[in-house]
């Protein structure tokens, strides 16, 4: 181990990103360390391993962009409704500041990214929540983008795949936040009625109003290992507890044991598992007209620019 690893303070010019895990400070860029076991990892290995710790198998949270890069075929993702942003409908204390922070941390105007993608050549609509934007909470933008994406999947008769990483309804939007549970669930109901597949993937964390709505409604529900999957937060639950919780309480494993999750899938197998699921559903191949149109749109425009008008609000993928 290099000498500077043992120093409490980083040498000049090296960023100090120590978390208080009792692990020495790590120079940014070259090294990183596991949030759970504290193991020092080479950043490039960590990226190659999809941010899964080789020692303790901890699955670190991914940003929406990282997730998309992992599961979608290269270059296939065409974002939809990228411009929607929160309106602070209640004038809630500090909401604007928190949303602004979410924008700067995640580089996105809200907590859900949607678009069309190919997964192993199968066309689908993909929704990915980004926990870094206000805990992936469900505000009006989240619900609207979810509904538009579902409606696009319905219109195109292609599967809707959603990665959840969300603490639930966004308090700062009050009842409008709560109603996103109904809005997303009603959108899923439209898919179910029309026989359009909907796949839900629970990642760390999936809690509260997210789990009690769209996240629990997948025709197939997958989960990443040891993700926090819970109705009520630990603190709330402890106060209410009359029963002793098991050691794996409110994890993916606990939820699967109790019949709430179809399958726990390690991150490195997630893409191939999704391909098998989409194959079962008979999802159209990306060589379909939709995929060609999307590819054409990709060729003439940058991500985030409108390409063509489809769907309910005239916003198709672009």
């Amino acid at each position: 181990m290099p000498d500077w690893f043992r120093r409490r303070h980083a040498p000049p010019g090296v960023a100090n990103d120590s978390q208080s895990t009792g692990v020495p400070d790590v120079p940014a860029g070259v090294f990183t360390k596991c949030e759970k076991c504290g193991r020092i990892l080479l950043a490039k290995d960590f990226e190659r391993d999809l941010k899964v710790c080789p020692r303790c198998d901890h699955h670190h949270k991914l940003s929406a962009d990282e997730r998309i890069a992992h599961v979608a075929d290269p270059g296939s993702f065409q974002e939809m409704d990228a411009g929607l942003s929160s309106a602070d409908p209640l004038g809630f204390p500090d909401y604007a500041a928190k949303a602004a922070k979410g924008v700067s941390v995640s580089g996105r105007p809200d907590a859900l990214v949607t678009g069309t993608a190919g997964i192993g050549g199968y066309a689908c609509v993909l929704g990915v929540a980004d926990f870094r934007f206000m805990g992936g909470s469900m505000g009006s933008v989240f619900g609207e983008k979810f509904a538009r994406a579902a409606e696009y999947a319905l219109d195109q008769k292609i599967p809707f795949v959603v990665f959840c990483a969300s603490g639930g309804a966004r308090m700062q939007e009050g009842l409008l936040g709560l109603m996103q549970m109904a809005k997303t669930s009603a959108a899923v109901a439209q898919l179910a009625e029309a026989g359009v597949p909907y796949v839900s993937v629970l990642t760390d964390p999936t809690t509260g109003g997210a789990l009690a709505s769209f996240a629990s409604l997948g025709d197939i529900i997958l989960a990443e290992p040891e993700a926090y999957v819970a109705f009520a937060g630990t603190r709330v639950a402890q106060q209410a507890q009359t029963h002793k919780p098991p050691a794996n309480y409110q994890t993916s494993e606990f939820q699967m044991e109790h019949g709430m999750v179809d399958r726990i899938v390690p991150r490195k197998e997630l893409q191939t598992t999704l391909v098998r699921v989409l194959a079962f559903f008979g999802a159209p191949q990306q060589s379909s007209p939709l995929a060609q149109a999307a590819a054409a749109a990709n060729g003439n425009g940058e991500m985030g620019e409108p390409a063509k008008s489809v769907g309910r609000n005239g916003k198709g993928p672009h």
Partner: protein
Amino acid sequence: MPSITVLEFEKLIDELEGNIRKTREIAGRENRDVGVEIEDLEKNRDALLREFFDALTPWDNVLLARHEKRPYTLDYLPLLFDDFLPLHGDRLFDDDGAMIGGLASLDGKPVVVIGQQKGRDLKERAQRNYGYARPEGYRKALRLMKLAERFNRPVITFVDTPGADANVPSEERGISEAIARNLREMSVLRTPIVSIIIGEGGSGGALGIAVADRVLMLQHAVYSVIAPEGCASILWRDPARKAEAAQAMQITARDARALGIIDEVLPEPLGGAHRAPEATGEVIKEAVVRHLKEVGRLSKTRLLSSRYEKFRSLGRFIDPEAPEDSATPPAENPAVVSP
């Protein structure tokens, strides 16, 4: 702005009413005419009530919604329905005391009634889990809704819960799944649904039986994404700032109406529903009958598309690409749309 809470204020009113009673008793004993005196005292009481209730804070509404004397679902049923035949069980695991349901007849027409139920005394509170419904409750509710759908009967739900049960057994049996399933199934249930928030509309636990064609709310009921105490402890790490949280979250019936979350605010008698449950029941009944009549006229296709649109349209956000004529935005921010 009143400096005392509604519960403290009610003590004053109790005192006043004690005086009125005493004056009557003395008059009865001494065979004296006190009509004018009594009328005066009552006028005074009503003026105080009116003044206080005109300036209720959101937190006062929380206290009223949780009032120990507030009428619960079971108190309203005999006031609305000619009969009520309770039915039990989810056919899967258990019967939930916090969620009641059954068959009833509304002006001679058969309906399915579902409601959350708190307990009046300690024993009943334990049996009904303080109104915190368990997965079995939501599954029983859905079973009865499906029954209503199959036999083409309207569904009427009464919402009154602090929230869904968060204990280990409920988590084990999928409380989230039970609520989520209800949200999905209610949004496509092929029969009219009217929901009334009569007391506490506690978050997803309330919404789990309130995805309806018409959502009505008693004047002093509250409906919120999280309990004010919970909001205050998460945001400010201080549950004592609950009144502030209640204000910020806009949880009153008037707020919910302004946000487009509910369809109608049902007025309560002066001083709150518990001061005149019968009169409150009459108001609820009139509104339920009227709304059922309206939605009952719609074809099934129209009913379902309206219900979908109703919840689909809930949300306010900024859409830079929205065509300017496609929305009716609030004047102060032309980019904000309610689709």
